[in-house]
């Protein structure tokens, strides 16, 4: 059983469209992170959300932490080919605050 479920697993849309991807769990977390991984590279941190209901914006990307701190969403407005990549959510695992547990990821492809 995955601690974090991400959906959809794959998403392919046209440039200029909007999209939302989700990260869900039955557990409550003190914080949650979103990473983006481009082909052939390691993941890079996009944002950390720590407060239930928190919304953070990074240019065309909007991140929201659920009120109950069990889930999160990432919304991209007017998607561009540069947004193509694997989007991973991650939380502090139950083993200690030095370790992250990652979701399975959403692989996003933006078609020019």
């Amino acid at each position, binding site marked *: 059983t995955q601690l974090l479920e991400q959906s959809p697993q794959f998403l392919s849309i046209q440039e200029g469209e909007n999209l939302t991807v989700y990260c869900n769990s039955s557990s409550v977390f003190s914080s949650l992170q979103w990473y983006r991984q481009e082909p052939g590279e*390691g993941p890079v*941190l996009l944002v950390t959300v720590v407060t239930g209901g928190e919304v953070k914006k990074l240019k065309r990307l909007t991140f929201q932490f659920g009120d109950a701190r069990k889930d999160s969403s990432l919304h991209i407005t007017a998607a561009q080919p540069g947004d193509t990549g694997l989007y991973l959510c991650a939380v502090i695992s139950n083993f200690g605050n030095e370790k992250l*547990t990652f979701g399975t990821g959403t692989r996003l492809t933006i078609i020019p």
Partner: protein
Amino acid sequence: NAGVTQTPKFRVLKTGQSMTLLCAQDMNHEYMYWYRQDPGMGLRLIHYSVGEGTTAKGEVPDGYNVSRLKKQNFLLGLESAAPSQTSVYFCASSYGSSGVRTDTQYFGPGTRLTVL
């Protein structure tokens, strides 16, 4: 700063062979991690270290060993490679400040390993 570097970038092994993957970071980070990434399974933690001379098991440690003799280096060893260890391996490091519950992890570019 080079950040986190990994060597080699690619490697092909035969079943039963051994090898060591090297990770180096120049950010003076305390914590270092080794992950493997497989299709549909995300990143899974193999081993990690919270400081020079320390190591600990992660989620999938079997078949791997690690060493952290120097703060800037974290080595991952495969004693007897198996086809199930075919994967992309990522090293990461983080500052490791106590009380910071969402420390940023900085990842290397990965090593693609194939075991035949």
